[in-house]
């Protein structure tokens, strides 16, 4: 540590690079916010403006009055919450089964599921579309929710977490005569709280930010999620830079806030997924 006083030059370099990197990472987001508050046309001026000459919220109001943004916001929120809640339940039960019950073929089954992670989701999309069409689920919330209700990655994350919890806890509960579902619900779920929060953030962000599948399965504009609506609007309103930036802010802001508040859990999740993978 005594070396630190002599090494101010490397420290300066490290902080300079970090500051430059952080600025490059944040600049597009900062400009998005600034441009969304500019009077119409100001984002297309030369030299480019970094800050609005007068702050206006008219583009945000226009999104809700002239365009159907409230609807998209509702769709995105509903889908993200529904998939998160249901998949958390289903994945945690499966992860619990893989971690704490012994049955024939368990490990081979788990290995098989992990190996399937290399199959890109796009391979499934065409038949999945046809399958959901048979069930009448195209252009419904179910078309997004049902295929997202179980995820191999989610099961994996829960299993890894539960492996570290001693079996003796469960045995004690069984001695007391608790039923298996009771044990899961009142012992395992509370024990898993941190990893469940992590998985909840992952899932919520994943559904909120997803683009390709909602684009395919939600065909009517009243069903669009924010990203699908935004991609669609950005074609029609390509000239309305400030309006599009306001739309981008509203799409990005909820998930950024969620991340900033729960960042500890999110980062821990990436590390767990990364280390054990």
């Amino acid at each position, binding site marked *: 540590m005594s070396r630190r006083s002599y090494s101010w030059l490397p*420290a300066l370099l*490290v*902080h300079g*690079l970090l500051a430059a*990197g*952080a600025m490059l*990472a944040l*600049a*597009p*987001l900062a*400009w*998005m916010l600034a441009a969304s508050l500019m009077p119409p046309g100001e984002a*297309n001026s*030369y*030299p480019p403006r970094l800050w609005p000459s007068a702050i206006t919220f008219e583009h945000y109001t226009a999104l809700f009055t002239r365009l159907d943004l409230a609807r998209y916001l509702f769709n995105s929120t509903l889908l993200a919450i529904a998939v998160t809640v249901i998949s958390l339940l*289903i994945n945690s*039960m*499966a992860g619990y*089964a*893989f971690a*704490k*019950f*012994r*049955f024939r073929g368990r490990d081979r089954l788990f290995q098989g599921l992990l190996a*399937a992670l*290399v*199959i*890109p989701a*796009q*391979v499934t*999309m*065409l*038949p*999945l*579309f*046809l*399958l959901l069409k048979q069930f009448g689920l195209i252009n419904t919330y179910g078309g997004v929710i*049902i*295929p997202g209700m*179980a995820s*191999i990655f989610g099961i994996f994350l829960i299993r890894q977490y539960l492996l570290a919890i001693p079996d003796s806890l469960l045995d004690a509960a069984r001695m007391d005569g608790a039923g*298996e579902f009771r044990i899961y619900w009142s012992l395992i779920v509370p024990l898993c709280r941190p990893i469940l929060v992590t998985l909840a953030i992952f899932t919520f962000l994943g559904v*909120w*930010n997803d683009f390709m599948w909602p684009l*395919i399965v939600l065909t009517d504009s009243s069903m669009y999620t924010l*990203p699908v609506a935004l*991609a669609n609007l950005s074609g029609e309103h390509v000239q309305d830079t400030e309006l599009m*930036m306001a*739309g*981008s802010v509203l*799409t*990005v802001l909820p998930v*950024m806030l969620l*991340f900033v508040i729960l960042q500890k859990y*999110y*980062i821990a999740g*990436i*590390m767990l997924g*990364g*280390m054990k993978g």
Partner: protein
Amino acid sequence: MIGPERHAALSGWAFLAPALLLIAVFFFLPVMAALALSFTDFDIYALGDLQRLRFIGFDNYLQLLQSPLFWIALGNTAYFVVVGGPLSVAISLGAALLVNSRLTHGSAWFRTALFLPVVTTLVAVAVVWRYLYHPRYGLLNYGLSLFGVEPIDWLGDPNWAMPAIILMAVWKNFGFNMIIFIAGLQNIPPPLYEAARIDGANAWQQFRYITLPLLGPTFLFVALMTMIGYFQVFAEPYVMTQGGPANRTMSVVLLMYEEGFRWWNMGYASAAAFVLFALILAATMLQLQLRRRGSS
């Protein structure tokens, strides 16, 4: 009365059943159906009337291999993977080393700032970057003009469109791998560095002979995940260039989407999806193989 072992097995399967059923129906079944579909001429007529469906063997695959557009999409995707992947991994590692450096104060703040693009919505930031790349009013050209660089038509110039998309993609996702690298770096025991310093090793030697070898498994994981993800590039070209100009940003997944869901050539599109899958699998095997050879 059933024995405890049988009871455990039954309970295990019961907890597993919902997830297994869903994964079987909505993942494994479609994968197999996609393979079957790729050997048929499933098109818009078959969508209306399944009687029109015909088995055509490998015709879709042969047709793909003879399609100039498919080869262009393949080439563009390879460009994106081969240039964008390593660039992203290198920047992630650099950022992780800086954030994790023992010289750094306030590393949590830097980490959050560098990570923030990861949680943003790809479509939204792609829309933002489209304006940043504007040849006349865009911030990027303005910044470059301060250094005397002539304006570049980033998304309109066939030679610049793919680099522009790569730059945006790297900005968006390097933070994710940075976190994994930070975790890997923190797993390296500090006494190793202390011993090396006592032996007079400089910073580069410490990096080369301690950090890099011990980061090996993390590095492999990050490289594989990044490569697999980059092979699937779709939303960036969809939003920013629609595959243009002159198909220079048409990716395999974008081609699959257009063929399958715009023109309803679902048999043909399934074949394209399987070629992509085969390529991802082959590239994954190759990386694992190289790694094994490297470590032995």
